[in-house]
């Protein structure tokens, strides 16, 4: 019983890719949850932006929390922010997930037809994130 809300946030605080991973059945999940996660992720951006200049690491472990939710983040070299809002500790899994997604994101951003900061609408990207999510987050 754990949920993960993963989002890639562009330079203008705009989400460019969103995905939820959960062990809970889809029917049981509430729409409200996703909204709250979005709000939490957005609120965490302040801390992410503060921390990113204070550390050499790309990954920022549990930099913020609200009630039972933790926020972990990953900053790419181009200052794109990966945020995961999660309700249980899984540092190692999150780290692996971030790195795999980073890899995929870089490949995707190399696409000449993709404009930075615009929503990612690639089915391949979707599929890969799904795979990594299941592999590192939900397992």
């Amino acid at each position, binding site marked *: 019983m754990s949920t993960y809300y993963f989002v890639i946030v562009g330079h203008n605080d705009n*989400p460019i890719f969103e995905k939820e991973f959960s062990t809970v059945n889809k029917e049981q999940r509430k729409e409200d949850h996703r909204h709250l996660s*979005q*709000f939490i992720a957005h609120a*965490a951006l302040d801390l992410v932006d*503060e921390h990113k200049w204070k550390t050499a690491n790309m990954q920022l472990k549990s930099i913020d929390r609200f009630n039972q939710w933790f926020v972990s983040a990953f900053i790419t070299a181009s200052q794109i922010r990966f945020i995961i809002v999660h309700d249980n500790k899984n540092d190692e899994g999150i780290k692996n997930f971030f790195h795999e997604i980073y890899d995929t994101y870089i490949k995707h951003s190399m696409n000449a037809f993709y404009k930075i900061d615009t929503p990612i609408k690639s089915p391949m990207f979707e599929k890969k994130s799904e795979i990594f999510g299941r592999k590192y987050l939900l397992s």
Partner: protein
Amino acid sequence: MRAVSGPGASNVGVDSVISRLDYEQNALHHSCLLVLLRGVGPSRARILQRAFEKVRRVNNIKVTDSSGNVRNVYFRFIHDHPVEHNDWGDFQTHRRLLGLVTIGKFDNQTELNELCRHHESLKVRYGSTLYESRAIFFGPDADSNSIINHQMKDGLSVVDNKHAVLQTIGEHGVRPDTGTKECQPGRIQDEYTTPSNFKSQAFFYREQDSCVDLEARIGDFLNALFWVLESRRLERSREKAEKVSLLLAPFEKRDFVGLDMESRNNRKRCVGRVMKNLADLSLQAGLLDEALSLYHNANETLRSVGDSLWVGASEEGLCAASAVILYPQMREIETLHRNASLQETGTSPLRKTPEKWRASDATKKINVTAATTTDALTSHSSSCSSVSSILTNNSSASGTPTTSTSSSSTSTISAVAPMGHRNGELPGNILKPEEIPNYYRKAIINYSKYRHAATIETEAALKATRICIEQNSPLDVAMFLQNILYINLSMSEPERVKQFEIITELYQQIGYQRKAAFFQRLAALKHVHQGSQAPDWTQSYRLLLGSFTGYLLSLDSLEVLENAAGWPALQIDLLQSLITAARRLGHSALATRHMTFLLQTQWGNMTATEQSEMAVQLQNLSAQCEGSPVPLVLENGTVIPPANLTDLPYCMKVVVKDLPPHLRPQRIKIAKADSGPFLFTPIHFNSVDSRDKKKNKNKIAFLWVQSDLCEVCVTLRNPLPFELPVTDMRLLTNGVVFESLPQTIILQPHAPTHISLHGTPIETGQLDLQGYSTHTLGVKSNCRLKHMRGRNLPPNYLVEVIPALPRIAIKTSLPQTATFSNMSRADIVVTSASLTLYNGESSSCTITVRNESDTLPLEHLEVSINSNVEQELQKKMFRIDDKALQAQLPVAPLSTIEFILHIYADADFVCPLPPAAGSVHSNSGGASNEHGASSLSPYSNMSGHASLPMRVGSPDHRRQQESQNLNVRSTLSGAQQSLASLNVQPGAVGGLPNLRPAQSSQHIEAQLRLKYSGGEALVAGYCRQCAVSFNLELLPSAQITSWDVLPAEIASQFYLVLDISNLTAQEMSLNYTDNKNILIEAKESCRVPIPVDRCSLEQVCIARAAEVAENLERELCFRTQLLSFSDALSKLCSTHIAERVKINWLLTGTDIKGVASLRGIVLSHEMVDLTTVSPIQWYISFQDAPVQPHSEMTCTVGQRAQLSISLTNQSLQPLKNLVLTIKFYQDYLNGMENYNLETRVAISGPNRITIPVLEKSAQSQHNCSVIFFTPGRFKASIECATRPQQQGSGILTRSCPEATKLSQLETLSSPSANLNTLSASSLDEQQPHVWKFIPPIEVTVMEP
């Protein structure tokens, strides 16, 4: 203002836990003396506000104590103070309420009594801690007669003199002596008396009083407070360590019941707590160094006994004392923040915490001076660094690392020099800036061990946060704030909301807008939580609106679209919450506005379903309150800018339409003023204008006319899946006053719709078209082009509006045409007329012009004809009496004038030149090329036809072919008589049927263009142009198919023989000379001879001279093509004939008649010779009798007859190379002529005589004798011929060597050779001419 808080508020917290958090607290408040400042009586905020401000301004006093040190003592004015907070006074002395000031307003004695009662009740409530109180009363204004001097109205009444000691303590000396005021009239305290149970000091003022001495009095009051506190401190410090009682936090009371107070541990605890208490007092009394030392000691003592709560308190105290020294500017910053928040709250400023009323210049000034005294601490950033550097110096000098402060503190306590740090040095035991958060953390951990200390813990965290903000370490701020959330503090929902709001504010202070927005939204949602008893939508709305910045939203939709930043899903959610709040508040206008904003800004971020859902929602909302593009102002002064649905419907294209062509204004062409000798100048004096024009790229090229309906075409698309009605669509303009006509349309889903928006400019000048306004989904929007994104629309269109022009309506007397003209500028045609005429017929048309304008006269009318025929022809065909027309001007409004257009159907009657072809080729207009080509096409297949070669090609070409044709004709006629050339013509006549289709009818299109103007526009130089289209059908009438020239009976005339065909379908009566008529059946032709006077020699000479001149000119221009003289001559003859011969025709049975002219007739060389008067005058005598025409001459066989021929040169030129030939022949009158008469007649002497030169007016005589051998009728042909020069060059060489030489030269290098008049005449001589004596002499030879 909340005047009186109910007394019930005091008994809320029965539990010893502090019921209410003081969220405003900061570390510096530890050093302040708490004073309750309260308004009493009925609320009169406006009046009392000034007094409140004055009191608050005095929050700091400087006191010189007994040892001569200056103490800086601060006060904190609060508005509300729960009594139970006083219970914590032992734990932290600054929580104790020490003073009370009430401010009230009364109008009569009863009210004054009430105010006094309030004051006393407050005194009672806080009696346990209160040191002193004051009341400030504002009475009614004195009677008008008693008001003399506002300044002198002040009065002071010391009602209760039990605090008389104050007067001695007061150091300001500004206290007015009561006695000096006695003389002043209307002392308010004389009029009203306070009740006997009122035992406080009160100050009375008039309502309009300036209260000059109020500050001084408050200062005295605060002084009094300080001295009481100081006495308490001294009391405490003198207490013997063995005798001190245990100080307790409120909730501890039960814990220590029954414990042994005398144990060593507890003794120590007592001492430690007292020490901490003393430190608090010292801090308040302005003894910072002492306070620091005491805190350190207390901390150590208490820690040794494990009294965590008080350890925490001492740690917090340390932090506070350090902060007071390190960050004195925090007081100032705080006031600034208060000021900022004050603006937000707007109309209800006093509903919030009273602290904001401390905002005043006085406090700042005091703080600034305080800061400057500690000169290292002037600025925020430098304070941290400088302080730390000083500290590190100190610590390194003493050799004690930072961690061992506690150990070193014992030693430092004695070492502290009183007020030493004031002179630039900091006390050695002060906490370093970076230590403060650590100490706070420790304190919080200590507090967190006690459930009942949660409030203290929270407050500590807030204080720590504020210090961290001061230190500019946002991560620490975030950490402390984060911690607050997890403090297990049971609090009511409003409390929690308040907490969120404070957290928001603090996050905002460190610039964490997103975090702030998160908590702001949480607070907003908490306000209206589902379970909430009384949801406060106002607060919720306010907070939601406040969180806009955090979500990168702005109130202005334009800005939002511009930035295109932020998290759309969250923005939509926020906006929807906002709309709900606004709706619940009952602010339908706001709800509609926000919904409009949502649709406008988030359109691209919504799915199609969401879009239509939102649109429907908007429709529902706007049903309650219509949206309009005006800014809405909230109660707190926030302005909600208008939101416009610029893209609903979506504008795809905007086209500004010109006026209809016939109404389009034009410039009246005015003859250019003489601008000097230069045709072109590179210097542009009006270059400024042209540069301006370049700037205005959106300037429309055409003009609009004042009070004329104008049109803008807009293409709209409805992006919604349902029908979208758009009502009241109008153009939005700027500049000139413009009356827009509303337009309503229902847009079908997704289908682009064109819509025309109309309007009338009322003024003249520049009109700025900015867009249009719509009313759709219940919202009025101003859709400006500049706000429409993603399309290539200019920000605006600029149209020049010129003064009003009149309008006219035109009627003609002719029927209208069924077809449309394909002439150029056909668009300006307003009406048409058609007319069918036979060639040569005349007609007229009456044109009626009506001025349709209501006000403007028609002052200017210019009529011109434009047609597809050449200018010359056109002049002949259409005629207007312009003078008569101009005489009728001006035309008054709504009246009419008439004028007549004369039409003559001019055509080429001379075949084989079809008139159409002729006119087409000569038409210079480029526009008619097409027309010409099309009319040419029927002939193109005939181009090879030998008999009709001249129908094709350009005029030049035609001329060549004409001459060719003439050559053909002349060669054909050859030696035969010239009449024989007529025989050639039947070929051409035979070809006539081929001509028929082209000849059948000819269409001429013409436009009668009218330029008209009037009123101001005329002055400005504008006019309108419209046209009447004329469709003229020219039917062939008479046609001259062939012609020839025959010598007439008399030498001065010749016969022009014409073959005339009647091409009409009716019988035609032809009148060809004065009295001769002939009837021609339809489609028949007949031959008529017309005697015509010959062309005189003078004319020939003139023509020759003109030609010579022209040749010279051509030669000067290096033209190679020279005109031949014969060409000019033939033209001359042609016009000569055309002028003299007019053939009138009449269609019998009708009154249709016309005139056929012979214009354009082409004459051959021989014909020309016959047409012109011969240069040679003959004088012939036979048998010494002069020969008369048709005279009978007789002679007898075998008898010699004398024939004498005399030639005179009549021309102006000498004639050269003349050959006179005499030939006798017999005319059998059957077409046979016998020249073979060697056996019948003999001439003595030559019958060919060469005359080399016949000078002008010279005579040449030739005599010979003739003998006839047989009787019969003989004829003599006497002719004189010139031969081309080269043949007789031998003779010429003798007579005129120069000419020969020249002519030879000419033959060698013919056209480009130098020519003079001589050579020109010789050119003429190159042509062979034959002049005959007409009629031939007839001689009847009889038998002797």
